[in-house]
């Protein structure tokens, strides 16, 4: 039973790490601002959830597990909100959506 919990938590942590890596590569390689924000939003939502659930399995039903649940709820609330605020600010600053032919936009 312990072994099973360990294996599942390892798998979740590794998949979460893979999504963080994908998000990082996306921020570097995407052509313009909005697609880059979309890639970085990956790390806010799915990667954080997977890593924290993996850690919760390691922590068990203790105070540490409860604190991790609170952290997960907080990150799920504020991460996507900050991506939304960033995108709204970019739109307000006049950064209209442009095609990939424009090339990289230096922010």
């Amino acid at each position, binding site marked *: 039973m312990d072994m099973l919990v360990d294996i599942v938590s390892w798998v979740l942590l590794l998949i979460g790490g893979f999504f963080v890596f994908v998000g990082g590569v996306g921020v570097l390689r995407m052509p313009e601002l909005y697609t880059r924000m979309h890639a970085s939003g990956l790390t806010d939502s799915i990667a954080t959830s997977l890593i924290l659930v993996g850690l919760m399995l390691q922590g068990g039903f203790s105070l540490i597990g409860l604190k991790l649940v609170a952290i997960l709820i*907080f990150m799920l*609330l*504020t991460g996507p*909100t900050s991506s*939304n*605020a960033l995108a*709204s600010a970019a739109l307000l600053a006049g950064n209209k959506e442009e095609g990939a032919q424009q090339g990289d936009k230096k*922010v």
Partner: protein
Amino acid sequence: MTVLFGGFLLAMLVITALAMVQTRNLFVAVMLGGIFSLLIATVFFMLDAADVSLTEAAVGAGISTVLFLGALSLTSDHEHSKTTIRPLAIIIVIITMLLILMSTFDFPFIGDPQSLVQNHVGAEYLAKTPEFIDIPNVVTAVLGSYRGYDTLGEVFVVLTAGVGVLFLLGKAPPPGCYRNKPADTEGLSHYLIPRLVGRLVIPFLILFGLYVQFHGEYSPGGGFQAGALIAAANILYALLEGEKSALQVVPHKWLMGMIASGALLYGLVGVTGILLGGNFLDYSVLSEDPVKGQQLGLLIIELGVGITVTGVLLSIYHAFASRGKI
């Protein structure tokens, strides 16, 4: 494995510092400064300094970034000068760096149990705290009781900085300075999502700040971190709802009262020590049992520190954010 991770974090620190210095766009530099603070908070945590890591994350990555952005909105956010290389500066910097690197070979390596830092005073604080003060968090015990006089000085430094900024930015700006700045009457109120989530999250931020304040004797925490957290919650409210609403919720008079009363509370605890027969800032005489007296004294002075830090950080933010607009 931890050694490798530590090395990776330190390399990222150096890269971020180089990028911060080299970029000409000041907004990018301030954001990189926030990333630098968060990275160095992680390094502090890996070096087993939990209190310091919490303070650096709250103050460095949170409040400092907001204050820099507030100042940037009042000045320009691009650096004008061409990148000229100053050869004399580079030569001096390289020579000094080589001198420091040469001298590090005489230091004890990191983690050495025989080094001078671990013995003498530090070891004595660790040994004597269960007997005299009896709280788990030794850093709070040292900060509040053994080095209580230093902390009193620090509260007064924070108060002086607040008073200084209020002197500098208290008078109205010269006319015609900010003529093309829009008046900030509503903050972000036509952005639905940040406003809604902000309203959900702010009460819990304040609750967490109070938890950190009063739990400072049992876990990493204390007055400074709590002051920064509660100030950050108020700054979030000011950003979302606009300056006018924020100054109605916590008016200027209350902020002045908070700045002064925190430091006053600290000083009063010290003077009460004298009146009850002990020395200045001697908490053992505050109650029948000296250990309980120490704990009571620590609680009250941490409260004083938290109140002053909240008041100062919030009034500095309002001084920057409402300049020339209201």
